[in-house]
């Protein structure tokens, strides 16, 4: 289903609601929420909070709500890794509240989360009142304001951005040579899959040099790290450019999918170049691969 372009009812102007910075309880004290938690443990409950200030009369005016309408401001969370959603605390609003400041918080069990956590404040209609106007929201639960962009917390550290796993290539397999260094496992024919659920870089734990480059990232391993980085980008880009759906409708891939990730990558490395042109170009490796090396600045160390 395509995303909603225009809502069929009046909504609040974004400036009517101010959301303060998000806080996370770490080691007994509240601290500004970091971008990621390198030592995240599913056994730990995350405590988070933010403070909101809402211009309630302004919101009523924007939404053409009658004085007897009731609203609710609340905290919602979603974890793309588990696909689970939940809520934190909420506060109900009436026209007579004027400008209202409130603390919203949530206690989220780590067992409900994987890969990342998204948090957002939203404002919904609770009761439409007796005489709603023609373009006034009427159904309870209708979103009148949604914080964008959402607050995002990456769990499981840097590894969560691109799943990397160390395995011994010599155990139980006949498909890989024992002495290979790494392999990327993914499905270029289905780019709707989530990156975290379907793409894996397997590194041979028997290959000490490669293993060290991936796990420690020491300066002396720069060459190996760059070779892997180039190989991954090349594999993903060339694979996606063979996919007709990707080339024809790259915007069709939802956030966090493989297709969206590769589209974002191409936006960075080949900004403004139509995908059909890139595909044609990629059919001539001697021309395309130097361009890719240049775009990625491979081995330049920048």
């Amino acid at each position: 289903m395509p995303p909603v372009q225009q809502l069929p009812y009046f909504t609040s102007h974004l400036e009517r609601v101010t959301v303060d910075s998000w806080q996370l309880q770490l080691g007994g004290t509240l601290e500004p929420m970091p971008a990621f938690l390198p030592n995240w443990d599913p056994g730990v409950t995350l405590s988070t909070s933010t403070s909101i200030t809402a211009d309630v009369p302004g919101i009523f005016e924007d939404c053409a709500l009658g004085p007897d309408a009731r609203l609710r401001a609340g905290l919602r969370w979603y974890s793309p890794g588990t696909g689970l959603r939940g809520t934190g605390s909420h506060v109900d609003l009436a026209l007579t509240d004027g400008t209202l400041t409130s603390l919203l918080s949530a206690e989220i069990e780590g067992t409900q989360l994987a890969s990342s956590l998204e948090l957002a404040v939203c404002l919904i209609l609770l009761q439409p009142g007796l005489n709603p106007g023609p373009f006034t929201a009427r159904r309870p639960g209708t979103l009148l304001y949604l914080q964008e962009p959402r607050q995002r917390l990456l769990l499981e550290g840097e590894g969560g951005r691109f799943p990397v796993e160390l395995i011994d290539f010599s155990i139980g397999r006949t498909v890989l040579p024992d002495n290979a260094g790494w392999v990327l496992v993914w499905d270029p024919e289905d780019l709707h899959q989530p990156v975290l659920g379907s793409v894996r870089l397997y590194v041979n734990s028997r290959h000490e040099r490669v293993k060290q480059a991936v796990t420690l990232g020491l300066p002396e391993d720069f060459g190996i790290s760059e070779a892997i980085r180039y190989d991954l980008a090349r594999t993903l880009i060339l694979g996606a450019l063979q996919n007709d759906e990707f080339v024809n409708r790259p915007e069709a891939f939802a956030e966090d999918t493989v297709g969206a990730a590769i589209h974002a990558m191409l936006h960075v490395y080949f900004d403004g170049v139509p995908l059909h042109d890139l595909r044609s170009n990629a059919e001539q490796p001697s021309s395309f691969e130097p361009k890719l090396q240049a775009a990625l600045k491979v081995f330049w160390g920048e």
Partner: protein
Amino acid sequence: MFSLYPRLDLLRAHHLARDHASKSVIELATQISPSLEGVVFAPTGGNRIERAELEALRNTVLARASSAGYPGAPSETGAAGFDAECAALLHTTMRLHPSEASHIEVWAFLTCQLLPDVVRWRFPGTAEAPAALERYVGTSRRGLWRNAFGRLWWRAHRFHTPGRPDPYGLLALLTEDEIVQLTERPSLAADAGLLVQFSGTFLAAYERNTAAGGRVARRELIRESVKRLRRLLPMTAFDLLDQQVVGSISASLIDDTLRTATKTPVAV
């Protein structure tokens, strides 16, 4: 306390799955060797499962499969009954939490190493197209939802209604098509409260309509009702409403579907 299960890397899982898909149920059953060699466990989040517990899990699932005809081909009703029972069984006995259950490698171990014969039995395929690899590894378009056991655990988790006399009752009441309609849409499946309310309301409305002589097909009712609900999801936060209100909105959507369907001339 939660349990941590062995994780089978996808490379090895794909290799095993290709091999399993060409073998018979009996062949696979005689080759079971749930080796823990080369598998990894999550570092935190519970206690590592013991080998004896894995064997007990295999025996319990196998007993359920046997009562549904294993190793003989399952009938449609036998397969549906097995799915409902096995889903509840996995959810109650595995002591998994959603974070651990979201890792496809956990399910790849179950399907490729512990219970490959049951996967082959449950999804026999045809002579031309044997059991799909996605039933072992589950990395197709719908990812985890296609894995033979991962999909069952997640169904049980989403339809679980603690406090009711039969907390997994919805799994037996809903058909396969209805469960697919309700759970394979991430935006709907994410909200367990809405899912349970909507499902219960749908079942009650269909029963009432049928008792009153209504002619709306059950399949049509769920498909059209879910379409109406999905249209609301991008602009509605059901999870911030009281469950009673969610139930009321669900009933209103399903009643609208029934009214519209009743007005449509029935094809003869």
